[in-house]
């Protein structure tokens, strides 16, 4: 396998590898954060004492790593790169060399971020949202180069994903196989495309903001510093104008994976295929006008809060539609509980909880109290962990045979699911309660506050569960590498699925298809009356008698 490859499948695996590396790093930061919260002022086993400024660095890097260097590369770049050409029947991306450049720019971003840990002063510690003035002057955090490199890493990552987004769109619009109309595209492709559009339209303001912040730090401008007439709140608007759509950029590909997996293992068409696409696009539009719900108590005009509160709560409607569609797909189905299906159902179950707790945060008056508490932290882990990890694992267990030509071990996969599901909930359900008792985010030691002291046992329970949650992931790591080396050889279509990637070899050769496939129907014709089997591949021609009947 060439390292400098233009093959979209190789690039997908490269993104996946780097994403998984960062996932381990992000997991370690979570472990250190949780230890400190449960047993403050004690040595973290395997590390040592955590000073308060180091703690701030940990929470900053945990958020940065998990959102930008795990969720984005795995859900968008790895799955998008692997699936889009294969599912639309193309030989590769529209711009293979741009695709390669996109990965290597991302690799450079990763190196820059990694190096920021080792410069004097340490890595960024102004929160993953980098609010100025804290982030705008080295004197406020004691971090100088760490924060500059943090900004540089983000800028490089955005450049990389802009190239990726252009590629995704061009490929899906121009390289579809004959017969693959837009309304025959698998939903995961639709979701990837919507995510790419949302990302490209929202990232501009943040890039501008990042350049301004870097200039405040390095050149001495005062875009965000009030002593020179700057506005700290300007950054928050620029950041969240991107930051909230970004949530859906991550969520949509996760939901797309779940829709594919749930349909295949229900042996039933996805319920309401076209309306789901419309709901996704509506959600995409709405995602641009909700951002100020992060700023209800930031000092914006109180009259501005209600419109944003309304849009935020209304965005539940298109997502409710997608959720109801998934549930209706299970109705009168014929369900097999594979490891991939368990993770897909886990995503669904967990995401419902996270969506519902979002209503509390979206209600401006309630947010006055729960803003910046652990209730918010618990809420967004329910939405993002479900999309990124439950959804990502569903995708990996499902497409692993196609990616690597070998089957994964189902029994280990199921153990992995149940442990992850149990410990995930035992981490994050109690975290809501901790938040409702008022515990603030990003404090290093809750025992410094009288009103938080009674929460100590609950915090210790959360930490022990979190450690078990992290250890449960070894079942995946073992399964992944064992299957890679010695897994059963995968046939072309082990799950009897309809979409085009299953009609070629596992793994597909360079160029993907021996001949360009022709497409005759939508992707979800399971248990169709037109077929004797309970599946009907997109590329199977209409049978002669059937055709004659028409």
């Amino acid at each position, binding site marked *: 396998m060439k390292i400098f490859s233009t093959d979209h499948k190789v690039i997908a695996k490269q993104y996946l590898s780097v994403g998984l590396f960062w996932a381990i790093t992000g997991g370690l930061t979570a472990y250190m954060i949780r230890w400190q919260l449960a047993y403050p002022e004690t040595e973290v086993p395997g590390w040592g004492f955590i000073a*308060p400024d180091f*703690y701030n660095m940990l*929470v900053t890097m945990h958020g940065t790593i998990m959102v930008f260097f795990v969720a984005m590369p795995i859900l968008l770049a790895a799955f998008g790169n692997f699936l889009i050409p294969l599912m639309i029947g193309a030989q590769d991306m529209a711009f293979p060399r741009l695709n390669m450049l996109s990965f290597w720019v991302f690799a450079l971003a990763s190196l820059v971020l990694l190096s920021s840990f080792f410069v004097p002063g340490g890595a960024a510690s102004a*929160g993953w949202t980098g*609010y100025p*003035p*804290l982030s705008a002057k080295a004197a406020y*955090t004691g971090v100088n180069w760490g924060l500059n490199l943090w900004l540089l890493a983000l800028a490089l990552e955005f450049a990389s994903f802009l190239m990726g987004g252009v590629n995704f769109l061009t490929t899906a619009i121009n390289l579809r196989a004959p017969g693959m109309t837009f309304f025959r595209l698998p939903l995961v492709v639709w979701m990837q495309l919507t995510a790419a559009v949302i990302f490209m339209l929202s990232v501009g303001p943040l890039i501008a903001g990042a350049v301004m912040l870097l200039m405040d730090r390095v050149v001495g401008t005062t875009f965000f510093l*009030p*002593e020179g007439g700057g506005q*700290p709140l300007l950054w928050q608007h620029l950041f969240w104008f991107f930051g909230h759509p970004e949530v859906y950029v991550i969520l949509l590909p996760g939901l797309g994976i779940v829709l594919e997996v749930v349909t295949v293992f229900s*042996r039933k*068409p996805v*319920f*309401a*295929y076209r*309306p789901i696409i419309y709901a996704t696009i509506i959600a995409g539009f709405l995602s641009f006008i909700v951002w100020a719900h992060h700023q209800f*108590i*930031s000092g914006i005009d*109180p*009259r501005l*809060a*209600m419109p944003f*509160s309304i849009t935020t*709560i*209304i965005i*539940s*409607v298109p997502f409710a*539609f997608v959720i109801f*569609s998934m*549930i*209706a797909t*299970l*109705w009168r*189905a*014929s369900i*097999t*509980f594979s490891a991939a299906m368990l993770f897909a*159902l886990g995503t669904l179950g967990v995401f*419902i*909880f996270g969506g519902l707790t979002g*209503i*509390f945060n979206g*209600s*401006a*008056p*309630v947010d*006055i*109290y729960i803003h910046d508490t652990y209730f918010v932290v618990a809420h967004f882990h329910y939405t993002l962990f479900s999309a990124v990890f439950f959804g990502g694992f569903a995708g990996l267990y499902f497409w692993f045979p196609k990616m690597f030509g070998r089957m994964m071990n189902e029994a280990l996969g199921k153990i992995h699911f149940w442990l992850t599901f149990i410990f995930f909930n035992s981490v994050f359900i109690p975290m809501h309660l901790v938040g409702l*008792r*008022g515990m*603030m*985010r*990003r404090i290093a*030691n809750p025992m*410094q506050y009288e*009103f938080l002291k009674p929460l100590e046992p609950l915090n210790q329970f959360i930490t022990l569960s979190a450690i078990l949650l992290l250890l449960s992931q070894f079942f995946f790591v073992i399964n992944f590498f064992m299957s890679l080396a010695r897994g059963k050889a995968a046939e072309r279509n082990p799950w009897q699925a309809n979409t085009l990637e299953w009609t070629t070899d596992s793994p597909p050769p360079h160029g993907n298809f021996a001949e360009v496939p022709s497409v005759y129907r939508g992707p979800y014709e399971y*248990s169709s*009356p037109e077929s004797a089997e*309970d599946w009907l591949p997109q590329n199977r021609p209409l049978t002669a008698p059937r055709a004659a009947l028409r």
Partner: protein
Amino acid sequence: MNWFPENVSTFGGEIDSLFYLILYITGAWFVLTEGLIVFFLIRYRRRQGSKAAYLPGESLRQASWILVPCVAVLILDLWLDFRGADVWAKIKRQVPPSDLVIQITGKQFNWEIVYPGPDGKFGTEDDLQIDNELHVPVGKVVHVVLKSKDVIHSFFLPHLRLKQDAVPGREIQAWFEATKPGQFEMPCAELCGFGHSGMNGQLIVQPQEEYEKWVQEHWPKK
């Protein structure tokens, strides 16, 4: 079960009851959706010889199975929006006239509290400045003018359900009326640097006579 710390402000109860309203509505949806999922998973697990139904859900008749619940979601959303708008207006827009105005300035890592002194004006010689200790009388409307000297801090009174960021370069108004005497914590809720954890003050709510006694003893004389 008590989800929150004790509420001791006039508007805190409104926030709490809005929270519970959302809790009941979302709780009902949670039970309904998760219950249906579990029921379907058991009822429609793969069995020998059974085939799934072919239900694309594209026709309006079939799609109405999920469109109707979506309309229900929309109606409940709007209800919560209107209830929320009322509570928000009560807290943020219909601010009652003040009995006492206090300036609170966040700085790494303390709350600097300034009373106007006997002349009732800030920036004069008889101002009283103390760190991290906020004395107020019970049952009086207190206006707080929030400022910051360096980075963004967030003024948080968990027992009064009050949180408001203090932004450098701005003067932001907040208000509260405590309903019960006692001592309550006043932490910073926005990451503000290495001393953020532990940046904390005390709100001391006193009966009127006690508060006046404290004023007599501590405020500069005319």
